[in-house]
């Protein structure tokens, strides 16, 4: 199977979209936080917590969408912690973010052991099944690639549209963007920078957790300790790659996922027999870095990103 065959197969693109879905959720979450001026490095841990919370809720008997809701709530809880420390208290966003990641990860593992003390392999759940969209799924190539996915993947794409609409077409979105550009401008209009930023971090963290939950509720059907595996950090890069714009960030997520899907398939070609597989694993990251370098040079960073705001101070 050569490269052309891979790139023109529906199965390859279906895999790319599937791999992209959790990244899309978490990237949108991070983008909301950063647009409001808060770098949320808690993303990696929040994804772990979301993956676990969604899965354990379904295992305990909740429906799948209930699991998604539980993951969202868990993400919001960690978001509240992050927002409280980083916004009104004004602590270093780097330190708070790493702290939240460590806390969320370890608390997840601890809870896992408390809930399931005896098991050697985690129990499986009935995960989301692919849903073939009528008519659209019959389009050659595009149909099986894009319209035979699980409902959570469709939700990810709808989320991008929703985030773009809210950010650019509503007064709320304008306030969020202004808070990330010049909080003084927001305060001078009598709006609360603290409320806007905290709200953005809490909601954004909720979406990060749903990104994690996609792994346990849709991509797989169980929870493993290292399943998030750095996806959170990739999403931070994807926000930069996307120049803080939802559409471009979506493109970045799909591109990264396509490289990931490609390297798995390349390992099975004759080249894979000679080249060490680690090189293939590196590929999406190397290409992402290159793309990042090319794309982000003219990006407009939110001017007040990581700038704490204290009312009444100059």
């Amino acid at each position, binding site marked *: 199977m050569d490269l052309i065959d891979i790139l023109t197969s529906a199965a390859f693109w279906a895999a790319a979209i599937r791999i992209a879905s959790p990244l899309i959720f978490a990237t949108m979450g991070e983008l909301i936080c950063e647009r409001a001026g808060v770098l949320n490095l808690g993303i990696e841990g929040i994804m772990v917590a979301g993956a676990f919370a969604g899965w354990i809720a379904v295992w305990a008997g909740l429906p799948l969408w209930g699991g998604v809701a539980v993951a969202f709530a868990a993400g919001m809880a960690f978001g509240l912690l992050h927002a409280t420390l980083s916004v009104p208290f004004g602590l270093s966003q780097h330190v708070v973010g790493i702290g939240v990641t460590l806390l969320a990860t370890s608390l997840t593992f601890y809870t896992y052991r408390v809930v399931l003390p005896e098991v050697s392999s985690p129990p499986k759940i009935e995960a989301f099944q692919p849903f073939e969209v009528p008519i659209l799924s019959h389009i050659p190539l595009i149909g099986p690639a894009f319209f035979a996915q699980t409902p959570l993947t469709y939700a990810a794409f709808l989320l991008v549209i929703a985030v773009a609409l809210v950010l650019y*077409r*509503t*007064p*709320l979105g*304008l*306030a969020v*963007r*202004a808070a990330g*550009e*010049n909080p*003084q*401008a*927001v*305060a*001078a*209009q*009598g*709006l609360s920078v603290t409320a806007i930023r905290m709200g953005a971090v809490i909601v954004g963290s909720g979406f990060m957790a749903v990104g994690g939950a996609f792994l346990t509720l849709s991509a797989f059907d169980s929870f493993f300790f290292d399943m998030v595996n750095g996806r959170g950090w990739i999403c931070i890069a994807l926000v930069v790659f996307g120049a803080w714009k939802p559409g471009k960030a979506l493109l970045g997520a799909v591109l990264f996922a396509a490289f990931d899907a490609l390297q798995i398939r390349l390992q099975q070609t004759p080249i894979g027999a000679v080249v060490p597989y680690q090189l293939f694993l590196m590929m999406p990251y190397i290409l992402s870095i290159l793309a990042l370098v090319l794309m982000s040079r003219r990006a*407009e960073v*939110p*001017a007040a990103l990581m700038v704490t705001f204290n009312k*009444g101070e*100059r």
Partner: protein
Amino acid sequence: MSARDQAQPPVLRLSNITKRFGALCANDDVSFSLAKGEVIALLGENGAGKTTLMNILFGQYSADAGEVEVFGQRLAPGNPRAALDAGVGMVHQHFTLAGNLTVWENIVLGTQALSAPRLRARAVKARIADLSKRFHLPVDPDAKVGQLSVGERQRVEILKALYRDARILILDEPTAVLTPQESDALFATLREAIGLGLSVVFISHKLHEVMAISHRVLVLRHGRLVAERATADTSREELAALMVGGAVSSPKIAPMPPGPALMRLSDVSSKGEGHAPGLQSVTLTLHGGQITGLAGVSGNGQGALSDLISGLAMPSAGQLEIAGDAITNWSPRRALARGIGRIPEDRHHTGTIADFDLTENAVLETYTRDFARHGWLDWAAARAHAEALIATYDVRCPGPDTAIRLLSGGNMQKLILGRVLETKPRIILANQPVRGLDIGALNYVHARLAEAREQGAAVLLISEDLDEIITLSDVIHVISQGRLSPAFARGTMAPEALGRWMAGDGFAEVAHAS
């Protein structure tokens, strides 16, 4: 013309406002009222309490005592929303705009409920277009604010207030960042606005502006309202004296024979940066014991020239000579070693490091030479040096350990001035040395520059203020589009004639003749 009408109630009344910050009394029992269609100028030195008073009025601070009434209604303290809703608009000295957002987005921010389902972009833009036509404030609603000039940004700030139906406009030092032309345009807009029934509080420490625009002048000193004058019945001299609480003195420039040529630029050209032009075949000689004034509208090559002199740039053509030596290797460090002292144009960004304390800022340019021993910094000596600067140059501050960003502009500039003069520079580059300073600090800086001249230094004074140039300079050049006019000796040029050179006339004839 006085628009005051005793029969009409005032649109704004401040009664017995007092505000303390710790031991400092920023406002002490201040009361005044504003009539419809009136322009009040609030005059005072930096730190006199003008901005604090207006921040109380606008609800950003709450007063310790006293109250604010707008249109007869008492204003809830400490809430900008209440002030906005009551019809008070404020244009802050440091604009509150978001650079990555468009003009219309900046204007509409905060005017629609956050729960509203969508921004009504078309209606918003139509209203902005209408306002900008009515008040002669041309601006492109779809432009990103970050790409606008300072003058355009100020228009956006004013439009923002007008968009909210402000009937009282507070302008905090609106001309501090404007070119003379932009200031004139602003005044035209303000006259338009008061014609339409707005009232204005105009904060400034520039006397000629106060005289030009206001009906009534209130003078604040050390937080207290010390005088109130109808503008028609007062003079610049009286206001200046009221402001500083004593007579004002501008330094005497006694005639002196020029000293040796300390720096010579021969047919020097250099690259511009961004929109600012570079230098075009500039020939300039700086003599010891002379102040050479460089007049011109900002952005005409002043930046390129000061970069060149301070070692940040090399000529792309032509020759730079210092004390007769042709310069081939050039850097800021070499410039310092050659006895060039620089007072940079932007004291916040290129003059100081905001979060460093006074000691660190005092030795920034000389720490490797004078304050290091065997590679280790000598903090005791540095601190002693800072203390000496603070004492000698009258820098008012809590002490050498204070972060410099906490100082007022005047005190920051005095420290920079001291840092430069203490190195006994042969050549002093003073780029807009008194921009934004009050009269007290301004006189101080001028007197020290005059003193350096008497001691034989060559001073290059770059300024947009023609009065300043004409008062201080032995020789005047005008810069326009990177070209330099011939030298005009002291007393030979009237402001109008220099103005024509500033507008670019005259250069063609010179080129033709040569």
